[in-house]
């Protein structure tokens, strides 16, 4: 039986995970491939930790099992670490190099790991690659386009023809923002090349 290519998107409610997941699904439709996905709605969207599962060539359930994801795209470093056990050994992680400290840290005196600690813990048995998506999104013309920057950066690891993802981006983003998002995708893709070549910092 052919395996699906499983991608886990993680981040914080409001960062555009649902649009990102729709873009990957649309790319599957463009290539005439089956796809399954699952995402967090409702209660968990109020600034909480959220996840999106995408199974390219998937024909069964939408959920990716821990230890089996081929690729993780993380919009927040801390969330990358929280969900890192979903990644298969040797799987790739493309991670936005920023992270938001959870309110619980200030409210309940929990401690947040530093960027260096997160990277050290991630790198022990996985292949993390950091992308400064916030800066690239600003450069593209809108901080909101960081989700598309991340898709561009991670596109090197996805089993799609190069035009399918950019075509999906153009189909799904609001008409007024097509130009910004096209640029965001290209900037992300250019940066992500370093990840493909094995760098940990793109």
């Amino acid at each position: 039986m052919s395996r699906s290519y499983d991608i886990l998107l993680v981040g914080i409610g409001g960062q555009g995970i649902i649009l990102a997941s729709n873009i990957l699904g649309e790319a599957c439709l463009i290539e005439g491939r089956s796809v399954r996905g699952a995402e967090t709605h409702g209660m968990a969207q109020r600034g909480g930790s959220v996840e999106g599962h995408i199974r390219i060539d998937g024909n069964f359930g939408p959920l990716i099992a821990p230890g089996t994801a081929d690729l993780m795209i993380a919009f927040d470093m801390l969330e990358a670490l929280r969900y890192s056990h979903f990644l298969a050994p040797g799987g790739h992680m493309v991670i936005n190099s920023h992270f938001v400290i959870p309110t619980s840290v200030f409210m309940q005196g929990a401690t947040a790991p530093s960027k260096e600690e997160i990277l050290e813990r991630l790198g022990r048995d996985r292949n993390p690659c950091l992308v400064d998506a916030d800066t690239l999104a600003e450069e593209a013309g809108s901080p909101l386009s960081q989700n598309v920057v991340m898709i561009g950066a991670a596109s090197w690891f996805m089993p799609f023809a190069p035009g399918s993802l950019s075509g999906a981006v153009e189909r799904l983003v609001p008409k007024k923002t097509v130009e910004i998002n096209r640029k965001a995708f290209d900037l992300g893709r250019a940066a992500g090349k370093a990840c493909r070549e094995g760098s940990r910092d793109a």
Partner: protein
Amino acid sequence: MTTQYLLGNEAIARGCLEAPVHFVTGYPGTPSSDVIDILRSHPERDYYIEWSVNEKVALENALAAAWCGQRALCTMKHVGLNVAADPLMTSAYTGVTGGLVIMSADDPFAHSSQNEQDSRCYALFARVPCLDPATIQEAHDMARDAFSLSEEFSLPVIFRPTTRICHSKGDTSLGFPPVSPRKGEFHKNPQQYVVIPAHTRILHKKLNQKQPLIKKALVGKGYNQAAVRGRVAVVASGIAASYVQEILPEDVSFMKIGAYPIDEEWLAQFVQKHEKVLVIEELHPVVEEAVRQVAGSVPVHGKKDGKVPFEGELSTIAVAGIMQECGITPLRTFPDSVPAGDLPARPPILCAGCMHRPVFYSMRKIFKEGIFPSDIGCYTLGLQLGAVDTTICMGASITVGSGISHSGEEHDIVATIGDSTFLHTGIPGLLNAVYNGAKMILVILDNRITAMTGHQPNPATGETACGIPMPPVSLESLCRACGVVYVETVDPYDLVSLQAALKNAQEQPGVKVIIARQPCVITARRAGIRRGRFQVEPNTCTECGICIKFGCPALEKAGEKAYINDLCSGCGVCAQICPSGAIGKEVKR
């Protein structure tokens, strides 16, 4: 025919359009809400659609339309079906003329619910057919076909997707919505529509006579399928069937249940061909109980012998473990994978500038020993702020408050309820509390919208589901009509007025109501309301941490000093809390 990548609820809405549906009602509840949200914003809408004030009201409206010959859809989450259970049970007796589909979305793992009840049990209880999709495509097809199924048996049909159907996505083949308007016509028939004892005894018999026909027909329609492939069998239902299919070895027989009631004769024939049967389903062992009834000497594994959990949701990895434990080798095994420990939690949290936060803050401040019954909505997150002591179901903040009051408990009781929840089932509780002389304060957290489920309008909003302006109901008049004498309306962003109202209420006898009114910060932003941001003057900040404990996600620490990040929506409450006057409106430099 087109193929789209759709959310389960989008596929369901699309299936209803293809039926086509003529009449839509419902009350929002995760994971069901998107269906009406999609249908109410559909550009070529030629059906009636409403957000009803609660599920009982919704189902009775839909039932009436179905009596008039229209195809009616009524949506809710599983616990909503408890509210609608009264009309449900008897609608099975009266039956319907037009198709009536009751979508009751179950939530295994209680992702956003107060329990894990199983709507299939209601279908068995009411003796109506139930459809339980395993995939997004099936959700679309079943939603489309459920209306004609309902018409075929003249019975309401319960359509029961779970969270992993409603909020999952898949490539879905779609048909075309036909143009087929139906004007409702009510034909008087007291023997059917007036359920006095003389009529209902006959209707009950007719309902029971339909059952064998339904069972046979559901097998014939292909919702329930079986393939004998070996001496061991797995029987699965709903989304669990998809998990099983991913890893089922080719020499193991497979039965997939997608519709209820199950035909026992057909089931027995399958079960008896095997040496062992494993039943895999989420929530209540509905299929398992049916299998055990016909199994005779064939060993059955499932929940009742501890192999499958009663609680929570399943997954492919969980199913693989269950199979292995029952001596079936799954096609694929999964590695042990341990989550990274010691990470600060990131639970959902009230938004920056949410009007609920200053209310909870003030309640804690004034009623240090107070008891705080609360209700279902965003404000249940007030648990994190220590201002939610109970929640059980919609409307129960008021009734639990009055019950505690009558129990002899002497501490102040301050209940909180949202505007939509108050209108849903809060009013009878308030009426009852006043009538029976309870002593309590009720704070109605009136943000003018049903926020948690995705901002659906309600009678306090000022518009209908379709955006037609409608005068908002006066919560003040409603409370006064229930007999409340002390009714005060305050702006929760104005801490002085809010706290004065709470203190005044403490001194008054009986049931007191404070209406804290401020639009939901999300809808306000969407409507273009912009308040200037606030900032901390670091030299004035004494590092006391009082603003940090307020719990707003816009407030964080930069070193030991407070700092306001760009989530700030400008409510200004933290500036009123700061004892040293270090927080003020942002000055652009």
